[in-house]
């Protein structure tokens, strides 16, 4: 367990040394979402209607944007070997990496989304819900993306390939995440959607670390 904490701490420190990498991801999120109000024009009803979907899609892309270096950097400088050689389960290491990724992307995205939601004319009560769905949903994205990142290690040209692998698997999270916000706005059952979102996160938590570890082992060969 101390290895787990050490790995999370190391990754966070690395991000801290190069804050620009995270900033670019957040900037992409902002630019992608502000594009829609600018492009569609100021019709409030259309904007509010699509807000949840757009914000969720942009969050999904932003999460993926940072994922392709999740294991690649370790692979190229030889630290992946050290991870594979650590005397504790590789599954935990995989989880730690995804965890660190979530802390530096998922959490800031969830914090940033309500601010952008205002630009779409969302209701204050909905803004909080948006943030909550992102908080519950982004761990799943980090885990699925982590698998795609591990699978494409040592493959040629992995950026778009990674996204191609991850995006279809992220669809349920996207649908229930955006759906939950919609539900709140239109009087549906927000709690039920959130529960599904949490269930998806638990399923990912229970399966992905094993798959990622398997993928990392074969990349180390």
């Amino acid at each position, binding site marked *: 367990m101390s290895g787990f904490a050490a790995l999370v701490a190391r990754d966070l420190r690395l991000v801290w040394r190069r804050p620009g990498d995270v900033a670019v991801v957040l900037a992409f999120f902002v630019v992608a979402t502000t594009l829609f109000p600018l492009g569609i024009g100021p019709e409030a009803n259309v904007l509010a209607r699509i807000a949840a979907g757009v914000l969720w899609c942009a969050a999904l892309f932003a999460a993926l944007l940072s994922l392709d270096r999740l294991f690649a950097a370790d692979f190229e400088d030889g630290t992946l070997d050290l991870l594979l050689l650590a005397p504790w389960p590789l599954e935990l290491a995989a989880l730690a990496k995804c965890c660190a990724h979530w802390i530096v992307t998922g959490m800031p995205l969830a914090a940033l989304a309500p601010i952008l939601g205002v630009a779409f004319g969302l209701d204050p009560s909905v803004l909080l819900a948006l943030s909550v769905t992102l908080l519950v949903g982004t761990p799943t994205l980090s885990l699925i993306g982590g698998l795609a990142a591990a699978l494409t290690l040592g493959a*040629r040209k992995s950026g778009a390939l990674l996204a191609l692998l991850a995006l279809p*698997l992220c669809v349920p999270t996207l649908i229930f995440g955006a759906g939950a916000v*919609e539900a709140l706005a239109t009087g549906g059952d927000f709690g039920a959607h959130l529960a599904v979102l949490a269930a998806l996160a638990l399923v990912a938590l229970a399966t992905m670390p094993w798959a990622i570890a398997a993928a990392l082992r074969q990349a180390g060969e």
Partner: protein
Amino acid sequence: MADLHFLANPARYRRFSQRVVPSLSIATALMLAVGLYLALIQSPPDYQQGDTVRIMFVHVPSAWIAMAGYGLLAALGASLLVWRHPLAALMARAAAPVGAGFCAVCLLTGSLWGRPMWGAYWVWDARLTSMLLLFFLYLGHIALNRAYDEPERGDRAAAILVLIGVINLPIIKFSVDWWNTLHQPASVARLGGPSIHPSILLPLLWMVATLFLLFVLLVLLRTDTEIDRRRLENAEPQA
């Protein structure tokens, strides 16, 4: 999976396929001829849809085969990862593009059919969308399989992916169904419609059997090619 145990050895597989492929090809060709006659000539045009209904005889079997094909990939992936069957990898490599092909045929025939029926090539219907996502899963598998210089690595990576994908497939399907029913009451003609008349059902089932045989035949033939290719790549370089 008993068959696969028996066939796990490529040489034994080779002997098996050499015996089966000729008769299978003939059977497929004959059934296809009969099927086309049944579907194009013998079955009546639909009172509503006219002759376009004949698209169904390709469309529906393709859909089913595409779904079954992904299941086959998952089974092959499991036997590669668990038992390290060398043939499973080669067969998965052979089967994925065939399955993706049937998936594409389903999407194409569906949207060609959709134009006269709904007035649009594409609508964001739940079943259409989940078929599209299945197609993407196929594409991901194929792309990952080929992204490695060492084919063995591509095989194992794709096997891990397909096992996760097959867990997710029902979840995706379920969520897409839910997504569509929430947003959209049926404004376009729902797929399926009234129960199918026997004069259409018989040729349909016939075509399902025929195209399924075609799928099997293609997979067997492509597996042969993959074995040859892998042998060539693995040949020790002289000198």
